[in-house]
């Protein structure tokens, strides 16, 4: 049996690690206390971090403000992804499908596969239901972000497209008056800082740290020759990342971007096979999930406690409201910003709702979560799959490392865009960022990161504050765009090119 010590963040380790931890712990604690400020839930021992409330409130508001766009936009979104509106004269440009696939390969990863397992092990099977609901609400947040990302994108001097929250916050709010222009600029800068922090932390050090743990696990655990050579693993990983981001070796990036969807496909099919094998257990598994979601037999005390856990994991899983995906979606070729928003609905749909339902059902059916093993994260998912398909843990280990690699590549790009936004769009600035990024990979793999990981997670979640704050002021703009677009859809005046 392979061990997946994914979330064992140990605090012992070398003296260097301890020194670093001690040095930055006060800062990280402060940041964490503000961003993850735990709001106590009445009648339960569970807490709800403030940022999760912030994300969920926004998602609910957007869902109502856009009159359930997460349901009524799905049909049109599907036609857009399928290519019904792809103009053959624009062949060779970025299509809706490509933009969606690119954004997905940045979000699919540890957050989704491990997230469900953590939710189940902490909050019981009911957390899955709440996680799916949060994913559903998050679709509305993605819609708004990605519509704005395309609407306010800008073109760099080298002709490449630059988009994302830093652009829609600064440009979008500037459109709405001089007072808001200052707020927009402030939000944009704050977002860029948090995004750079997140790209070094949760999307870099955390990923390289976790893939190293996976690697050690597969190659023999504590006896592995690699066990105490994290720096070497980090260097190798940094080398492969450097090939793509500095060497510009696009073939590797291209191979990765093809392997990741294949891996995701294998994961989903394996889950479906397991569910099909135990099809007679599905109704009872669902009823267990539902009753546990209502708090009838939940672990962390009361329905609200389960809800809190589910919503929190969903925030990590879909990144809806965080703003990161808007950067990837902005490169699409379209004259209608809303069209990319509708396509983006499918992102939380796939990475949170579908993956959660499948992973959750497998975990519940296999009963892996009941076995009081103290497991959480990928380890639990792996055991649940392994109980039916014996060799699957090996595949999962490879998948996790590849997902981590593609997440790093995607975030290296996000971070670089934000770095360029702050310090200017020049070769020297880009090179500085890339070198920093590579250094953090090595640090991430070679140290037992306690405080650093908490800090970097907080940085990613913190992106939601400036992002959503600015978006509230831009809602009327999005609504106007949406109404105009939906009228065209109804009237059938959008050019359709599919034969």
């Amino acid at each position, binding site marked *: 049996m392979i061990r997946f010590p994914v979330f064992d963040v140990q605090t012992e380790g070398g003296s260097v690690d301890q020194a670093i931890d001690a040095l930055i712990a006060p800062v990280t604690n402060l940041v964490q206390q503000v961003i993850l400020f735990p709001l106590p839930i009445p009648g339960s021992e569970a807490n709800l971090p403030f940022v999760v409330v912030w994300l969920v409130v926004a998602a609910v508001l957007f869902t109502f403000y856009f009159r359930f766009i997460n349901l009524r936009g799905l049909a049109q979104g599907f036609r857009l992804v399928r*290519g019904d509106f*792809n103009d*053959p004269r624009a*062949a*060779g*440009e*970025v*299509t809706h*499908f*490509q*933009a969606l*696939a*690119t954004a997905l*390969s*940045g979000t699919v990863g540890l957050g989704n596969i491990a997230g469900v397992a953590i939710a189940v092990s902490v909050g019981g099977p009911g957390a899955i239901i709440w996680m799916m609901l949060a994913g559903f609400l998050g679709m509305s947040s993605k819609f708004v972000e990605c519509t704005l990302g395309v609407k306010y994108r800008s073109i760099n001097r*080298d*002709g*490449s*497209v*630059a988009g994302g929250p830093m652009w829609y916050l600064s440009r979008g709010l500037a459109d709405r008056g001089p007072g808001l222009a200052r707020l927009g600029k402030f939000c944009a800068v704050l977002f860029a800082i948090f995004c750079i922090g997140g790209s070094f932390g949760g999307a870099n050090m955390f990923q390289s740290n976790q893939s190293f743990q996976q690697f050690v696990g597969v190659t023999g655990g504590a006896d592995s020759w690699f066990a105490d050579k994290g720096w070497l693993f980090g260097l190798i990983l940094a080398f492969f990342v450097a090939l*793509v*981001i500095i060497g510009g070796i*696009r073939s590797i*990036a*291209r191979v*990765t*971007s*093809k392997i*990741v*969807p294949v891996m995701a496909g294998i994961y989903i099919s394996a889950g479906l096979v397991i569910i099909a094998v135990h099809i007679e257990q599905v109704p009872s598994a669902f009823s267990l999930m539902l009753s546990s979601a209502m708090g009838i037999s939940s672990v962390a005390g009361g329905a609200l406690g389960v809800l809190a856990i589910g919503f929190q994991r969903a925030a990590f899983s879909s990144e809806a409201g965080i703003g990161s995906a808007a*950067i*990837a979606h902005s*490169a*699409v*070729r379209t004259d209608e910003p809303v069209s990319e928003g509708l396509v983006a609905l499918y992102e939380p749909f796939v990475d949170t709702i579908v993956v959660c339902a499948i992973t959750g059902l497998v975990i519940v059916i296999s009963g892996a979560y009941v076995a009081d093993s103290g497991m959480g994260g990928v380890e639990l998912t792996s055991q649940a799959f392994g109980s039916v398909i014996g060799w699957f843990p090996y595949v999962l280990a490879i998948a996790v490392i590849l997902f981590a690699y593609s997440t790093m*590549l*995607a975030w290296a*790009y*996000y971070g670089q865009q934000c770095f360029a936004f702050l310090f200017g769009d020049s070769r020297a600035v880009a090179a500085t960022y890339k070198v920093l990024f590579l250094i953090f990979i090595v640090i991430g793999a070679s140290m037992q990161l306690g405080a650093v990981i908490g800090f970097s997670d907080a940085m990613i979640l913190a992106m939601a504050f400036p992002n959503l704050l600015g978006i509230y002021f831009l809602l009327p703009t999005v609504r106007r765009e949406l109404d105009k677009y939906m009228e065209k859809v109804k009237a059938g005046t959008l050019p359709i090119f599919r034969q």
Partner: protein
Amino acid sequence: MSELYLVGLDGSDASQRALAEAERQAKLSNAALIVSYVIPWSPFTFSTPEENANRHQRREEELSRASECVLKPEQQRLIGEGLETGIEVRHGHPARTLVQLAKENDADMIIIGATGDRPLKTRIIGGTAAAVIHIAPCPVLVVP
């Protein structure tokens, strides 16, 4: 009205022979030529964010390289030979795009090389030439 032949170039030797044959045919029947180049591309591929950001730029480069380096020199030469010659560059599925071009221009014949693709691909899933023959709206001349 004179006939119009569509030639597909892809940088392979066979496509050069197809062009030579097209030139011969055109001279015989006093036909006009369209020399085309299809850059293989699919709307359903997976790419990185960086590639996407630069895609528009790269597309322009690809189009201009194909037309400046490959098509325009041939066009000059053929016009010098007294043949009426147009050029077309497109992104897309090679066979489908060639057929699309033939339809758009109302071509009377498509002239292509037999072995532009890698041999293994041709063996297993069939080459571009075979696909064109299946869906073409007009006669197809395949040059070995």
